[in-house]
């Protein structure tokens, strides 16, 4: 399946607006979907379009929204960056461990570093921050600043 076919299939199946599915270059595609449509698009991409490899999940702080990009790949190297945005006040996403059990650690990572709420993820060890890490402090959010010790500040001054 070529990039063009995949693009057409996605647009046709989910009646996505033209600009939301893009071919960035050979073997690189991106698609932005509504959070409510995500599950269907994701399932379709895996089962019908054969995006059988999950590379990772990237979380982004985009001001009033948090975005999550699911980097999926086919066996022959086409990468689809499937992006969803959720409001920062309630950054809830659904777990994908039903499709990719290995996504567990990637989901825990966006929970720790960006404060995502992953629904359906069973309790387990957090990753990568320490257990004593303060609540509601998410280092990859843009408004997070490191609390420097007095020695560090003196050194930088």
């Amino acid at each position, binding site marked *: 399946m070529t990039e063009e076919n995949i693009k057409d299939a996605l647009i046709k199946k989910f009646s996505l607006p033209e600009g939301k599915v893009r071919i960035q270059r050979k073997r690189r595609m991106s698609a932005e979907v509504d959070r409510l449509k995500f599950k269907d698009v994701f399932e379709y991409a895996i089962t019908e379009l054969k995006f059988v490899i999950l590379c990772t999940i*990237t979380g982004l702080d985009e001001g009033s929204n948090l975005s999550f990009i699911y980097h999926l790949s086919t066996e022959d*190297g086409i*990468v689809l*960056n499937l992006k969803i945005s959720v409001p920062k006040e309630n950054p809830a996403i659904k777990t994908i461990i039903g499709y990719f059990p290995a996504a*567990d650690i*990637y989901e825990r990572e966006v929970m720790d570093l960006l404060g995502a709420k992953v629904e359906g993820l069973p309790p387990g*060890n957090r990753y990568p*921050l320490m257990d004593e890490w303060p609540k509601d402090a998410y280092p990859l959010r843009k408004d997070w600043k490191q609390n420097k010790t007095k020695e560090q500040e003196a050194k930088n001054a």
Partner: protein
Amino acid sequence: MHKVIIPVGPQHPALKEPENFMITLSGEKILKFSARLGYNHRGIEKACEERTYIQDVYLTERICGICSHSHSTCFVQAVEEIAALEVPKRALYIRTLVAELERVHSHLLWLGVAGHEVGFDTLLMYTWRDREVVMDILAMLTGNRVNYGINTIGGVRRDITPEQSKEVAKATNTLEERTKYYIQIATKETTLIKRLSGVGVLSHDDAIRLGAVGPTARASSVDRDVRRDDPYAAYGELKFKVITDNHNDVYGRTLVRMGELMESYSMIRQLLKNMPEGPIAVKAPRKIPAGEAVSRYEAPRGEDVHYVKSNGSEKPERVKVRAPTLANIQTVAKMLEDRQLADLPIVIAAIDPCFSCTDRLTVIKEAGVRKNKVMSWEDLHDYSIGWYRERGIDFAGLNKKLTRMLK
């Protein structure tokens, strides 16, 4: 039988990196294995957002001490894609050459560690001695044993001379001969075969389901390799086989890595032979236009993924890194289910988790002296003897004895 939970790490005398494994045992049998990671989290992704692109090249290089070139290449590839830079072919060839040399050193290192974990320390001594050949070559080409600093945005920083090219070819011959010997050991030596076979079994389906990458996946017949499937740098122009194996165990992982070494030698020869002439870098802008890119790289341990988002300034908006060990560590629990505790070290080692590797002291700056001085092997030897003598330990007698013995 009574259940016992053994914690291994994060600080443990036999563990080289801070991680925590909780192992639930019934007698010698492992019932459950769980890993707690993150003790080495250094906030590099956040740090990247606060630095310029060029600083980030060096920062990402320091994510790992062994596959440092993997991370810096993966990062610059993404930035080059966003900035639409046409990287000269010669630069891509040099990048790929260093990449394959890095794979050689990494796989030889792994073979030594694997030998050590099963009590075959002669293999460790042999492979690490031979690994010095490739380390010297890397030091000659880049100036460093690790953290080569060869990459820059838009190309590479050092050219390769015809003399260096000859040295690389010579070293490749030596290494190939040694690797053939190791393949012979791996396929004929009964104790090694018996110790590694049936240990750390990961079925083909589990490897795919759990998202294994690199040699760990390929030893379970998962035919995936980014170098072939999503070619980058000069890989599109090279002829090579993707090595897979159907043993599904530590023995299979050993065979895959040995096979990959042989492929690397062939690739190194092709790169040297077909190295195009021309510039080694194009000038990159300080500010990178807004955009995003995903870059993939087949590191020695498996697929490395970087995502870079730029906002038009001189600092990236977001840098995301997925190192191969994060994908592979999740397979370990499966490999250890219902297995013996004694298999734990080799099974963990068999995914080749990233252990740090330290640099040597070669260049020193003397106070008041402007010029840097390069220490020769003899200088370094004398320096170490002097260092101990100052602390009341004298090697003079031992040294004489050693000199006599060497004569």
